């Protein structure tokens, strides 16, 4: 058993409150008005993504000297919730930049790598991507087929292979790539590299049409004799799997926050609707069957928040917080599915209509149960840690 501190009540600082209010205001004015339109077209909202970068949303926990805002994980959670509440797609881009790309570069990058790549992503100048999944390997990442081979002179790795499901793949300029350098070593043979997208041998595949988070572009990446200089190796050869998993621990707190944001939007809309909509001569909120939904939604939302803030505090205080992050991600994503589902039900036909954002919340919520480790994988991680299995 690895329970860390008991859940503590979280007193937000003035800084946290100001940040939350500023992000809420920004999201309400800049993101909400066009969220449905970007969902429909599937275009990447680069303009608002740039503005998010200017505010500091793309490098919340990155220290100031590397272009970030130098804030803590609580700030990250608060900001993610507010952005996701306005539009999940924007929060997907934000979460990859913050918890996958920046975190890897800050924790494992050399000073030169930090200066060249971290500053660009954390300041919002460039969009980042994290590429682990391949067409034939997702949950079982260690069976990847792509390869990197060091040349005789020891100056370059030649990378070949196909990666899939890369968030921001079509637009990213800084890519953290995981690929196999020692296939015989299994997961200990994976290494991490920084990819410059303007070098020959790199190509982006077609954009994936999706159920939800449609304004977050996802694509394949193709490496065909791509020459990667050794300076772009992150950490040591063979450290890739550890780097990937460390980043996912941080990332899962971000996805939990994203799930909370989507759920909160659906929940608040449902409360309003239950208070206004009338049937059989009364407000639908007067019906006990609707009240039951509200009670269950609220309870799961609150539990998600507590688990997620707990994981954020664990990350701030402890070197390992894998179980806390997995529990938060597992619970919050399933709660978001439940809450958005109930929200459509409370809205009846209007919930099914594209005139209201409820159906979008429902479609967007589903991804939180899949990426950065499916719910099955989270259960596996939690149980293995609890049982002391490897």
């Amino acid at each position, binding site marked *: 058993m690895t329970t860390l501190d008991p859940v503590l009540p979280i007193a937000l600082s003035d800084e946290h409150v100001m940040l939350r209010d*500023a992000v809420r205001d920004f999201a309400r004015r800049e993101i909400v008005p066009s969220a449905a339109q970007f969902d429909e077209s599937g275009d990447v909202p680069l303009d608002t993504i740039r503005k998010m970068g200017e505010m500091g949303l793309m490098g919340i926990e990155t220290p100031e000297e590397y272009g970030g805002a130098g*804030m803590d994980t609580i700030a990250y959670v608060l900001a993610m919730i507010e952005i996701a509440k306005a539009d999940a797609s924007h929060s997907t881009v934000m979460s990859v930049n913050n918890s996958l790309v920046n975190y890897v570069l800050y924790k494992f990058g050399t000073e030169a790598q930090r200066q060249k790549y971290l500053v660009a992503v954390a300041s919002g100048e460039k969009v980042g991507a994290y590429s682990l999944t391949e067409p034939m390997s997702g949950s079982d990442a260690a069976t990847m087929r792509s390869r990197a081979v060091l040349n005789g002179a020891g100056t370059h790795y030649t990378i070949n292979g196909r990666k899939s499901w890369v968030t921001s793949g079509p637009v990213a300029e800084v890519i953290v790539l995981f690929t196999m350098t020692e296939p015989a070593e299994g997961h200990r043979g994976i290494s991490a590299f920084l990819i410059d997208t303007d070098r020959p041998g790199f190509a982006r595949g077609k954009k994936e049409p999706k159920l939800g988070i449609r304004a977050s572009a996802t694509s394949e990446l193709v490496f065909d004799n791509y020459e990667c200089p050794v300076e772009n190796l992150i950490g040591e050869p063979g450290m890739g799997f550890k780097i990937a998993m460390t980043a996912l621990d941080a990332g899962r707190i971000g996805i939990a926050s994203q799930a909370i944001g989507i759920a909160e939007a659906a929940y608040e809309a449902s409360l309003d609707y239950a208070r206004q909509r009338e049937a059989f001569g009364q407000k639908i909120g007067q019906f006990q069957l609707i009240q039951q939904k509200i009670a269950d939604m609220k309870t799961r939302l609150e539990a998600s928040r507590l688990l997620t803030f707990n994981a954020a505090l664990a990350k701030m205080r402890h070197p390992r917080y894998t179980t806390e992050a997995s529990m938060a991600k597992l619970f919050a994503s399933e709660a978001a599915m439940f809450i958005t589902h109930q929200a459509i039900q409370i809205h009846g036909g209007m919930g099914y209509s594209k005139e209201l954002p409820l159906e979008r919340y429902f479609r967007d919520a589903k991804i939180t149960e899949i990426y950065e480790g499916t719910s099955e994988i989270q259960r596996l991680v939690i149980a293995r840690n609890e049982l002391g299995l490897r």
Partner: protein
Amino acid sequence: MHIAVITKSVPDTEAVVSVDAGGKLLAGDKLVVNPWDEYAITEAILLKEAHKAKVTILAVGPEQHNEALKHGLAIGCDQAIRVWDGALEGHDSLVYAKAVAAAIQKLGDVTLVMFGRELPDIASDAHIFQTARKLGWNLLGSVSKIEALDFAAKTIRVRRLVEQGTEVLSSRLPAVISVLKGINEPKYPTFIGIRKASKTEIPVWGLSALGLDAAAAQGQAAVTGYRELPKREGAVEIIEGASAQDKAAKLVEKLFAEKVL
């Protein structure tokens, strides 16, 4: 090269305004930065960036106004000052202008004072004129663009929106200007700005610090009470008729009779 931008917190335009039985105005407890001031604050920051000026953001009001001042700091203002004194409670616009002018004079080296176009809660811009008058500086109201600013030569040229069109005016500095919506795209606070702002203690200048006496805080106008708007009597009338043309003709007739057309 010191710019002062004046802000006032106002009830959110989305807040439901009502009056209680005792004639007290209820406008929700949350105040927001006057939306017009957001343009003034952003314009001050743009001028700061272009001219290496210093920007002070100033508000007259109780502690609730700190939030707007911190918002200004988070966007990039260099310092914030809150003017308040119990004696200023219920002040009229002239008292407000006296307090602002005194604070500007206390700052000493301000050459440009900027306001948002008006106060939306009371739909008035009198305080802007009064401040300029108290300072004895030129007023350039309803500015849609600052065309040139030369702190060394102490001149400013602006484009103003007037009823007949636009007017380009030059003035010497110091001056007071009020800006219109559309002069810029309001900036959002940055997280680094928020971190700095949340740690800043905002000084409060009372009447004595401003060199004003109690008489100066004596207004000439006072609000004596608020009353709820009379309830609107909305009546719906469905016009009957044999055909659409017939109904339309009856509608036009009625509209003429009501002098709507």
